[in-house]
């Protein structure tokens, strides 16, 4: 880490900014902790168990869905040196616990533990609370490392799509069941019934028992605290053992790069010979599209991004439906959000495709043709996902009449977002994990560059997307002709944004050809 900071001062800046932000939110956490500390012990326990469970889940899910944020040490980097896992693990553990998120959540866990001050048996309660919080923090960090290692292995297998599909169905089913329960019983009844029961059960599991243990001491049941701490400690040891096993496996089994796939058909020539009515793409666009579709289907770096791009808005929407109900027009914001998320997520698209760039350059292809092929491949899965969410929103609200305008506006936001991303990816590329590397890792030395690219594409998206969706907002407020305006504006902006974006990106691509390869390597 010291060597990284010496080489990449940007990285130190980023870490410092993260540390300052983390410290700045501590006062509000302390206030929340103070307020909670004055409540009865059972309220404290429920609140801390709920927060602890959400954090535990976030430590597993966020590194998987938001690819490129995991800047911990990838054990595969040590494979050539033949270091035994026994010697490697202490270093990996120390590195995992000294990241900015681990330090921040360490402080948060401490604040959560301090909430137990003022209870009877005060000294013992606080001691147990801090031990429980420390053990919980240890399980969060270990589970995140294990999750990314296992997910990397899974994504390299043919079974990945079946497993991901199963997980998606399970998440959607859970959201649907929750939403149905909230709708039928009301939010208060749901919180008092199902949620209270779930919290009670979670307090007995390793995910939250560390935060429930002090409650047992406060009730004068020391053994209740002991067994809760023991199961959290056992869970941590089990996670470390699994982590070590996963490290051991990854050191001698590099991620399978192609899975030994054999293909009899030439997909490139098939794309050239495909006849579709009205399809007049250039040869370059056709083959780049075919090549990029292959990436989206079988490259773990791309597959993980599809999962992240679709899962994040879906989960957040599901939680919002569960909390706010499923009748409000705000549901139609979800497909717009999904479209913007997907578009913005492609802001470094070209870097993921870096291995194809040199062949483009030596072949002197038109940049716009390459960009269009790449954009169409993304649109091939993104547009159906956006339309599906529009239909789901219309079905939940029963407002089928607004579906055409909402769909066109959402597709418009997608087109504009992808157009902006095409330009951003040529203008501000930064290094990403190469093919065959862990799709969840962040490339060392790119933090400053990625921050710049993300801020720039966020600003551009923040300016452009409101122009596309404001007529839709007007339609929901005033109705009438605004529905037609929203539909036309969505279609026009979507096509215009995608076409203009790829054209501008293509011109930049041609102009920057002699510099691009150096930016990826």
């Amino acid at each position, binding site marked *: 880490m010291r060597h990284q900071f010496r080489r990449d001062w940007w990285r130190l800046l980023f870490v410092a900014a993260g540390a300052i932000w983390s410290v700045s939110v501590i006062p509000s956490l302390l206030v929340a902790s103070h307020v909670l500390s004055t409540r009865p012990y059972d309220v404290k326990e429920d609140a801390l168990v709920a927060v602890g469970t959400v954090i535990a889940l976030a430590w597993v899910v966020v590194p998987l869905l938001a690819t490129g944020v995991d800047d911990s040490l990838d054990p595969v980097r040590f494979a050539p040196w033949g270091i035994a896992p026994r010697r490697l693990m202490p270093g990996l553990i120390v590195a995992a616990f000294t990241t900015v998120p681990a330090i921040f959540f360490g402080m948060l866990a401490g604040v959560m533990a301090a909430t137990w001050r003022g209870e009877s048996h005060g000294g013992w309660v606080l001691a147990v609370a801090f031990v429980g919080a420390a053990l919980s923090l240890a399980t969060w960090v270990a589970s995140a490392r294990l999750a990314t290692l296992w997910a990397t292995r899974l994504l390299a297998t043919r079974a990945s799509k079946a497993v991901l599909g199963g997980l998606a169905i399970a998440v959607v089913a859970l959201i649907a069941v929750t939403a149905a329960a909230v709708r039928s019983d009301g939010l208060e009844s749901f919180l008092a019934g199902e949620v209270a029961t779930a919290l009670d059960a979670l307090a007995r599991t390793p995910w939250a028992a560390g935060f429930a243990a002090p409650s047992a001491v406060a009730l004068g049941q020391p053994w209740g605290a002991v067994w809760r701490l023991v199961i959290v400690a056992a869970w941590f040891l089990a996670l470390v053992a699994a982590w070590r096993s996963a490290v051991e496996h990854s050191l001698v089994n590099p991620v399978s*790069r*192609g*899975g*030994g*796939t*054999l*293909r*009899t058909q*030439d*997909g*490139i*020539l098939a794309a*050239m*010979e495909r006849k579709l009515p009205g399809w007049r793409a250039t*040869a*370059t666009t*056709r*083959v780049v599209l075919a*090549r990029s579709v*292959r*990436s989206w289907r*079988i*490259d773990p770096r791309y597959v993980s991004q599809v999962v992240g791009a679709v899962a994040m808005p879906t989960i957040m929407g599901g939680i919002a439906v569960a909390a706010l109900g499923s009748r409000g027009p705000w549901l139609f914001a979800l497909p717009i959000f999904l479209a913007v998320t997907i578009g913005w997520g492609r802001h470094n698209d070209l870097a993921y*495709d*870096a*291995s*194809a760039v*040199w*062949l*483009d*350059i*030596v*072949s*002197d*292809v038109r940049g716009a043709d390459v960009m269009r092929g790449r954009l169409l491949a993304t649109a091939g899965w993104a547009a159906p996902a956006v339309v599906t969410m529009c239909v789901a929103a219309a079905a939940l609200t029963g407002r089928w009449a607004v579906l055409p305008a909402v769909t066109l506006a959402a597709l418009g936001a997608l087109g504009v977002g992808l157009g902006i991303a095409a330009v951003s990816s040529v203008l501000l590329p930064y290094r990403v994990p*190469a*093919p*065959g590397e862990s799709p969840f890792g962040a490339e060392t030395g790119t933090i400053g560059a990625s921050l710049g690219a993300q801020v720039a594409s966020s600003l551009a998206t923040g300016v452009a997307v409101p122009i596309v969706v404001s007529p839709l907002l007007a339609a929901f407020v005033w109705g009438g002709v605004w529905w037609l305006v929203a539909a036309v504006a969505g279609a026009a902006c979507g096509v215009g944004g995608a076409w203009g974006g790829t054209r501008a990106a293509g011109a930049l691509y041609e102009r920057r*050809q*002699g*510099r691009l*390869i*150096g930016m990826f*390597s």
Partner: protein
Amino acid sequence: MPSDATALALRGLRKRFGKTQAVDGIDLDIPAGSFYGMLGPNGAGKTTTLSIATGLLTPDAGQVFVHGVDLWQHPEQAKPMLGVLPDGLRTFDRLTGGELISYAGVLRGLDPEVVRSRRDDLLAALDLGTAAGTLVADFSAGMAKKVGLACALVHAPKVLVLDEPFEAVDPVSGAAIRSILQAFVNSGGTVVMSSHVMALVERLCDRVAIVGAGRILAEGALNDVRGAGDLEARFVQLVGDVGEQRDLWWLRQS
């Protein structure tokens, strides 16, 4: 401007990376129909020079002419004449070997039927038949090199620029590649290749350039450059021997 008889002309090429002057004023004329070897120690600037010569890297200064056409001013005329095999750059690896050749052929503007025919010819000639349906991701280093060479050849260029074309290639395939390249030169094509293997360069090339510290140290017909001795001796004489021949006594097994 160089004449059409000069396949590749480099004029005053310069390229700096931070504090390192990778290419420091290279001037070179490579005649059409020659088998040209570019030699140099690690870090001499060979790959940087060849990257600039093929449009992969913008020079800080200088010009590149392919059969008299300015590469950086008229890439649409110059690049179709070049076939390129870079070294150290990852190749897109989610296509099969056959598909990658087809992809390169289509990018070069060939009709699908021509691509299909040449793809099959190249797969057979380079002994890549079994790799035709295998993803490039699963290729060995030597197979990846061979399929890269096939991509460079598919559009029948006038000039082949090959960076370390024989690296990691097995002897049987190496012989096949040598035969293909010799036939190409005999038919009027030009091959420019970099290599560290002196014996190979002496066997194949009729002209050589020795590059050191980003400059041309010697250039000309093979016999003129190597003089009375062999090429390796001349190379060491020009670029210098290892600074200190320290005795690694601790490596001895007995």
